[in-house]
């Protein structure tokens, strides 16, 4: 029984990490008033790029860095369409998302089905040997801790810093932000590229740690869950993280239940993490006041500077 608990809890942190990276990026993008639906494609591009570059160079750091760069470049296409040419954000997001999936297949073409040794988990000696806590908290791979740090950093950024205020101001009323002298287009473009880089890192975590191999379609809808997490997490980093861990936990429980051979259709089981996460988040985000206070008022609306 204890083994099971360790299995689920330790696995939860790892499974949630790609979602947390991508969701923290998307949170910043949406807070600046842009709805980027291309997360799935950007995660896939990051996953493939990270895998190939890590394999070629032998360095996971190179892998993550090039994943961030590749997805940020892809998101620049999205920024050009939506912030530059004022294209519909939903349509542009879907198009760039599909483009990203295609790019990922192209990049990973010669590596389809190959594996890589996953990035090493940290070893804190005695601490990591502690029963229960050791395995869950002190024996994860480094990116798990980086993702937790990113939740704290993004919370602090948005709530306490001038830069965070500017991002929120641009997302609430770009006209007003412009009238007091902030460069709306620049802020949004930077936010979109940051979001792209984070989605790339999240994708790379999938192929370099969580399931250390490359296969087409490996992101498997996680990019869409990220979009849902940000909305149903009412644009608050801690709630989004809770949603991501919930998703991770249910994914792990599902694996366990399947392993036990219960007579439940596996398709239903595979759908459970998605269903449960959405339902739980939808229920906790019902408070209209909280939504109104955190929802970026100009989300999805193209901004044309008033001449």
């Amino acid at each position, binding site marked *: 029984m204890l083994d099971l608990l360790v299995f689920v809890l330790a696995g939860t942190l790892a499974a949630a990490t790609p979602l947390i990276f991508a969701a923290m990026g998307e949170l910043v993008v949406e807070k600046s008033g842009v709805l980027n639906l291309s997360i799935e494609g950007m995660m896939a591009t990051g996953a493939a790029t990270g895998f190939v570059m890590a394999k070629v160079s032998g360095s996971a750091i190179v892998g993550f860095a090039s994943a961030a760069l590749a997805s940020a470049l892809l998101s620049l296409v999205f920024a050009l369409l939506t912030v530059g040419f004022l294209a519909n954000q939903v349509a542009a997001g879907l198009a760039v998302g599909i483009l990203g999936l295609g790019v990922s297949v192209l990049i990973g073409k010669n590596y389809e089905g190959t594996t890589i040794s996953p990035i090493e988990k940290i070893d804190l000696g005695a601490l990591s040997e502690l029963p229960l806590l050791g395995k869950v908290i002190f024996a994860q791979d480094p990116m798990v801790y980086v993702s937790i740090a990113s939740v704290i950093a993004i919370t602090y950024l948005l709530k306490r810093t001038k830069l965070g205020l500017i991002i929120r*101001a641009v997302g*609430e*009323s770009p*006209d*007003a932000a*412009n009238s007091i*002298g*902030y460069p709306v287009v620049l802020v949004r473009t930077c936010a979109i590229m940051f979001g792209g880089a984070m989605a790339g890192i999240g994708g790379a975590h999938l192929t370099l740690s969580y399931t250390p191999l490359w296969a087409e379609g490996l992101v498997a809808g996680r990019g869409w869950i990220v979009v849902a997490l940000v909305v149903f997490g009412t644009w608050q980093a801690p709630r989004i993280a809770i949603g991501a861990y919930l998703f991770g936990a249910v994914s792990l429980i599902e694996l366990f239940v399947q392993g036990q051979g219960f007579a439940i259709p596996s398709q239903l089981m595979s759908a459970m993490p998605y269903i449960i996460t959405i339902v739980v988040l939808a229920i906790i985000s019902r408070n209209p006041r909280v939504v109104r206070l955190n929802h970026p008022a100009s989300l999805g609306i193209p901004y044309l500077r*008033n*001449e």
Partner: protein
Amino acid sequence: MTELLSLRGISKVYPSVVANDNVNLDIDEGEIHAILGENGAGKSTLMKLIYGVSQPDNGTIQWRGQTVTIKNPAHARSLGIGMVFQHFSLFETLTVAENISLAVNGSIASLSKRITDVADSFGLPIAPDTMVHSLSVGERQRVEIVRCILQEPRLLIMDEPTSVLPPQGVDLLFATLRKLAQGGCSILYISHKLEEIRSLCDNATVLRDGKVVATVTPTEETTQSLARLMIGRDIPVTRQQTASSDGRVMLDVNQLSHTPEDPFGTSISDASLSVAAGEIVGIAGISGNGQNELMRLISGESLLHSSGSGTVSINGSKVNRLSPEQRRQLGFAFVPEERIGRGAVPDLSLGFNSLLTSHNAGLTRFGFIRFAAMAERAQQCIKDNDVRCGGDNALAGSLSGGNLQKFIVGREMALAPQVLVLSQPTWGVDVGAAADIRQALIELRNKGTAILLVSEEIEELFEVCDRLHVIYEGKLSESLRTAETNVQQVGQWMSGQFLSSPRADGLQHFDNQKAAGDSQSPAQSPSPRIAP
């Protein structure tokens, strides 16, 4: 001595209109200078040019003797030009201090202290850690002013600042502006309110159709002479006639309480009013005090929640659960505050826009549109109301605000409604057209329509209403007969004074009896009452 700001030959052309045509303007240090003009005269465009929001097509701007190109608002602020907008540039989900920190350097803590200091020295109370969405429009204006003062501007642009203030708030604002001017800050004061300009400003530049028609000293002018400069003719006077109501209550709102879905909205508490056939009842109040919520409940756009209580009755039948369409079938018509999107669909032609509310007036047959009848009806409305447009096929969005408003009001009046409810029908409409709308309202009343009029312009309410209520924080005062009250009292009530001493002044209140009667039998459907 060189002027602080000097404009020479400024022109700005938009695709459909010449907004500014060869404008010259000089402002000295410490001067309070008015820009006077009607809506659409080019005042706002001129301010945008000075504040760097847009660039002039021709002409030069000199700032403290130097020719400058003001690239953007940030540049304008670095030169020392501040602006308080008519539609505020504050962020609702941030606190006052956070909002100000976006424009003024410093930590939140140090800014909070400076905000309190400035606010105290000018007598403008503000709590720095309040969320902006919880502030009234008047308080938001204070935040904007304090934000500007903290930037130590040399020129402060105020765009129609008194439109959001009750009369006594205007005095406080003027005292603040005079104090600023004494400290050497020049003020550019945009308004179309003549009395204000005469009492506040040292000089006035009058704009008409984008051109400067005169630069005058307002104290040496009369209201009439300024008006003639501004609109090119005398302001038309509305012919008021006494009401001839037969006392049938056509619209009755009885002890209505409601909390809106929108958490930033205003809750309505225990609001009662009634409008009889052949009378005009007004609702005065600063915007954001629940007018919008009350209007939505009356029009049927919002339905009462299960937690709400009270009734709305039209022509004797209770309509709480009826849709807007069903209410219209009872002879109800409504002109909402927003023209675009609520009063009219911008991407549809005027013909289709008239179809929206008039489809029952013979414009459809077996569910099919009768295009000839539709066009004819729209053309009639255009002709009757002197709507300047490209005919019934013109898109609603292509009309100027004032012209579209004339069309919408005309469209609803053509339905010959028994109950007509209007929200801000003359907002942004030029002086002549506004007078036409008021005249039309009075004529409609004389034909026996019950009219409810929500307006922020007290003068307008006194001009056309038989009685008026005041709304404050979602609470409705009892009604005052306009003939027996004055702007002073209504102004005080607009800041909530009716709540503390509703009957201290000895004026006759129409609603005394009604309130007493209703509290005993709240569930009863309203019976006809005797109106004065």
